């Protein structure tokens, strides 16, 4: 073993910012492309109460749709 290799610290590679990201972060970035930001901006204009009322109305709509499908399938 040479004297040089005993005394020198191996040179550390320059940190790559990407090394701080996991593949999950990359996956989430891909999903973000499909987020409807127009819808989010509209939602942010609503009060919190209005947002919950919207969710409950959607629940009613989905339940009605399921009921209609069951009726249709029963015929």
């Amino acid at each position, binding site marked *: 073993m040479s004297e040089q290799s005993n005394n020198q610290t191996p040179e550390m590679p320059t940190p790559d910012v990407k090394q701080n990201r996991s593949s*999950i972060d990359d996956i*989430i970035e891909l999903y973000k492309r499909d987020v409807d930001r127009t819808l989010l901006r509209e*939602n*942010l204009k609503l*009060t919190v109460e209005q*947002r919950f009322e919207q969710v409950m109305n959607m629940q009613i709509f989905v339940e009605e749709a399921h009921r209609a499908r069951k009726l249709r399938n029963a015929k």
Partner: protein
Amino acid sequence: MITDFKLYFETLVHHEVEFVIIGGAAATAHGSARVTYDLDIVYRRTADNIKRLVEALSAHQPYLRGAPPGLPFRFDEETVKRGLNFTLVTKLGAIDLLGEVAGGGIYEDIIGSLVIKEFFGYQLQCLSLEKLIATKRAAGRPKDFEVIAELESLIEESH
């Protein structure tokens, strides 16, 4: 079955239950466009609060969600003390009671990551967007990737 968030909040507040809104309901409060079908809360696991929680929900016939009917389930203090997290359905709809949430911890752990939001006439504790994202990441489910993407987009849109 429809989950009546307003009635749930009224019931819990009326009985002075200490809780934090998390999950889809918290996301809704922050502006999420996704539909959520249940109320998720982290409840404080002191003896007094468990008593108040049981008193709040008992009148609404809590039962194990998805379980076959007729099981000898009793929603009482002993059941809650011996358990931790409960996936329930009541006359008010679906509710998940969490004594501990992955990526967040127990009530005392998340109390520093709250946002107070006023709605339905009450000041209610909601998990912050950032902490909500952390809990979703900790859950590690692929189905949460869409949710996390939307929540991160909400943070970006809010600035």
